[in-house]
């Protein structure tokens, strides 16, 4: 991973003194609580003791670097990983990964997974009686570019039933996993689609308490990135935690 000028300066600040520059803890107000009883599985899995505050040391401000790992040429295109094309509505999902100060998070791994267009995962645990698609595995990955941008081509995932409560259905979503620059910035989230009629009864979506925060998990229809006569597009920008230190202004 090559460091831009801003990152080099942060790195210098971090290691010239004996104290490192940590990450802001504003995610605490945004993230769902561990225990959200409407999501039944949290009842036996949510830790009950209060979290122990961990000061940010070198161990927390560093994290896995993926820049050197090879990403396959078609890893970002979920519609071209098999002999034929998957069924469903082809879509482009793109956006930028930014830090809390609006700076691009570069060369950072983005991993996604999702159900097929019928709402079925090719996973042994998934018993939903909807068809599997031999041309769709539902997994993709890519690295963000210098602008923090990423782009996937896939099909729109279907909604699927689950057993959380009577007639429970997950709102359509794509799982998104990000590392960012540090152990502290690790994030797994879900991208939702605008106007989904299933939001009202989805306890995972509603585990995020503030409606404005929930709103930021919903992608936007992205006319600009549609490809005429080929695919519609959705935009999903992702924000990772910002740094505690005052950012150095660019020239």
């Amino acid at each position: 991973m090559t460091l831009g000028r801003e990152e080099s300066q942060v790195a210098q600040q971090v290691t010239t003194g004996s104290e490192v520059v940590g990450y802001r803890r504003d995610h605490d107000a945004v993230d769902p609580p561990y225990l959200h009883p409407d999501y039944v599985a949290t009842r036996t899995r949510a830790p009950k003791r209060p979290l122990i505050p961990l000061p940010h040391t070198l161990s927390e401000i560093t994290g896995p670097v993926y820049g050197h790992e090879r990403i396959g040429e078609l890893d970002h295109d979920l519609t071209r990983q098999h002999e034929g094309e998957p069924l469903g509505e082809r879509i482009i999902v793109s956006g930028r990964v930014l830090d809390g100060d609006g700076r691009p998070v570069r060369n950072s791994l983005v991993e996604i997974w999702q159900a097929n267009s019928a709402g079925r995962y090719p996973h042994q645990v998934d018993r939903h009686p909807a068809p599997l698609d031999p041309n769709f595995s539902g997994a993709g990955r890519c690295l963000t570019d210098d602008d923090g941008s990423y782009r996937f081509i896939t099909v729109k995932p279907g909604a699927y039933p689950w057993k959380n409560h009577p007639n429970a259905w997950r709102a359509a979503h794509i799982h998104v996993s990000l590392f960012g620059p540090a152990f502290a910035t690790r994030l797994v989230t879900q991208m939702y689609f605008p106007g989904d009629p299933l939001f009202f009864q989805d306890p995972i979506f509603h585990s995020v308490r503030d409606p404005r925060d929930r709103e930021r998990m919903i992608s936007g229809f992205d006319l600009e990135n549609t490809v005429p006569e080929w695919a519609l597009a959705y935009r999903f920008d992702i924000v990772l935690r910002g740094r505690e230190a005052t950012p150095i202004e660019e020239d």
Partner: protein
Amino acid sequence: MALMPTPSQTVGPFFHIGLSDDGRAELVSPDDPDAIRLWGTVFDGTGEPVDDALIEIWQANRAGRYAHPEDTREQIPLEDGFAGFGRCATDTQGRYEFITVKPGAVPGLGGALQAPHIEMSVFARGLLKRVATRVYFPDEVEANEADQVLGSIADPAERGTLVARGEAGALRFDIHLQGDQQTAFFGV
């Protein structure tokens, strides 16, 4: 202008599709003379093993250097092929297992060395955000005693949940998500 972070959501039961642990549970070759086996079982609040958890670890190399641009201590060598990251999904018995090396000590607050430790994240269905913990080593009694992070945990039993147990030539680190034996988890 500060931007608020995107909220966390659960990995759900199907993460195996997208978060491949293929080859990532071995950070070093099992033939490495310093190789250690770090394993454990993840339990829920009813004492049942959690067979759909994902464990990730992050650690310094055996000399105590992180393979990361912000660890600029050039005097400590990096190791070719050692990235310091591991990922392992639990099996049907709720078990995970890594082959790695014991990391060297790294500086903490005020520059004092921390006891050797491995950073660990646990993801699972029913966890709306990861839980983060640290694995400490049973043969580092003195360093553990002096460690600032361990020292910040008042209850000795809770502190003890962070020290792996030496067992049959391996290190065992069970994770209890909930209950009387709950593992100490950190707000990172």
